[in-house]
């Protein structure tokens, strides 16, 4: 099902979302980043071309989140009702990342109530890439799905809006129907990752070359749209009676990530930690869910201090 949105009327559409809830969109400042678009005037600053530095996962998994309030040494529930929020101009790689997080956090055995409350309140509206953003994108090889409510596709004077859910349809029902359904063409990239079974390369020496460059700065895990690991800790006031139990983002690159009581660390070397992250992204998740956890957004390569390019290593050296 498709709808048409005149490019000149795009801001009116975003204005209608602004009236329904909070609007977040990429804005190009020193870098492209998702920001709260509070006023009608700010709509003009919305960016349609760039790739956000930080992925939009922060709207579902904030860096720090309160699980409970601690009052007089007792845990108390925190209020979880949230107003609707709309995150617009999200790239397909990041939309697929949200679908991957959904699989983990809305697992029917143990659905995560904090994530679900945010997920239910949030609508992600995508924008299709006309071409690859830069030479680091490799989403074309990562089997991206049409996992979104709405996706804007540039068709000259119009945006063709691809509608994939009732939640999405409710937002665009007043827009004119597109004369015929034309599924947006998913982006192609010149950089591709060869799909290989990485289990057989687990003990290879090729990991060491990249690992020598890695400084465990954790930038890749912070910028990855699907990195979801967290820590739980209690943050107390000075009276040690009141405070909060927090969930904070964590990184498998951190040296104490696998430390257990008695100071034993299971992944004590940087090589083990680097390999674990790449294996988790490209292989372990695939073993269970039949698709890679990586969506090819390229952030971990684009912004790596040491210019580590695991795609190149896997393509060229793993044989």
């Amino acid at each position, binding site marked *: 099902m498709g709808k048409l949105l005149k490019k000149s009327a795009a801001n009116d559409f975003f204005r209608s979302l602004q009236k329904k809830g909070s609007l977040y969109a990429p804005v190009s400042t020193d870098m492209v980043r998702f920001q709260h678009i509070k006023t009608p005037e700010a709509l003009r600053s919305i960016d349609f071309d760039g790739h956000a530095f930080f992925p939009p996962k922060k709207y579902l998994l904030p860096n720090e989140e309160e699980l409970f309030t601690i009052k007089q*040494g007792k*845990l108390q529930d925190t209020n979880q009702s949230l107003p609707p929020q709309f995150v617009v101009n999200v790239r397909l790689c990041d939309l697929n990342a949200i679908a991957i997080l959904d699989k983990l*956090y809305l697992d029917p055995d143990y659905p995560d109530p904090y994530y679900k409350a945010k997920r239910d309140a949030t609508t992600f509206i995508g924008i299709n890439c006309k071409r690859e953003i830069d030479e680091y994108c490799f989403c074309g090889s990562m089997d991206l799905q049409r996992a979104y409510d709405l996706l804007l596709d540039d068709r000259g004077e119009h945006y063709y809006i691809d509608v994939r859910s009732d939640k999405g349809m409710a937002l665009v029902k007043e827009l004119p129907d597109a004369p015929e359904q034309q599924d947006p063409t998913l982006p192609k990239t010149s950089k591709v990752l060869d799909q290989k079974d990485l289990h057989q390369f687990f003990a290879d020496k090729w990991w060491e070359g990249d690992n020598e460059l890695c400084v465990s700065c954790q930038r890749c895990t912070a910028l990855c749209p699907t990195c979801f690991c*967290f*820590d739980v800790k209690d943050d107390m006031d000075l009276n040690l009676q009141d405070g909060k139990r927090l969930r904070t983002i964590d990184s498998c690159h951190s040296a104490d990530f696998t*430390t*257990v*009581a008695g100071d034993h660390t*299971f*992944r004590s070397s940087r090589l083990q930690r680097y390999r674990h992250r790449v294996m988790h992204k490209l292989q372990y998740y695939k073993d269970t869910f039949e698709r890679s956890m990586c969506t090819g957004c390229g952030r971990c390569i684009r912004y790596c201090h040491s210019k580590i390019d695991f795609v190149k290593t896997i393509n060229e050296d793993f044989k």
Partner: protein
Amino acid sequence: MSNYFEHTPVEILAKTWESPDTVTFRVNWQPKHDPGQFIEISIPGVGESPISFCSWNPTYCEFNVRVVGNVTKAISKLEPGDTMHVRGPYGKGYPMDYFKNNHLLFIGGGCGVAPLKGIIEYVQHHRKHFKDVDLYFGYRSRDDILFKHLLEHWEKEFFLHVTIDKDAGDFHYSCPVGFVTQAVQEADIPPDNKIVFLCGPPVMMEKTMPLLLDKGFHEDQIWVSAERHMKCCTGKCGHCMINGKYVCKDGPVFRYDEIKGVTE
């Protein structure tokens, strides 16, 4: 939707110091659980710690806690009558039905004996389903021996072998000095119809495994329990993942052939 981070307050019925740094709590809680599963004990303001069941009893639960960090230290300060906050049970326990009509061999080291005690109590409650039971437990010194008050009962009912690494401590119990691995190596243990439960420090498990395989045990006769610091217990926080397996969800109990060759 229920919140898996939420705790159940339970009353502490009894507290026993097993060794200078290890304490057992008996709590008034009757969750349905299998031996080998674990829970999170929470002290608001300090944090949470994953602890395994060390009992199998329809009327109460016991948890054995070694004081090694902030949370376990705070737990150890609780007294009978106090409230303990728990959530769980989590993970896959030992599939006890699957072991029926077999001989059982328990090999435990240090506080790795605690989860094994849960299986032993299960076996005591279902004694006719299981054949001979051998217990091989190793501790650092005489004072570190856990569940001292049960040694007498276990000696009567099972074949009990206790070793201590060094001959020190005040507790009087006659047992050979040496590693538990030596005791296993020297013992004549036929592998037929036998299930092995192995739990202890990583180095002990690594040393014991080749000994068992040498004695003719198959990999699918050996069950191990893995240790990790789980933060969520539901396969989300990522802390307990080894080679794509979540210790909290897929374990903590594994059949050896399932995790053989798993490296970090």
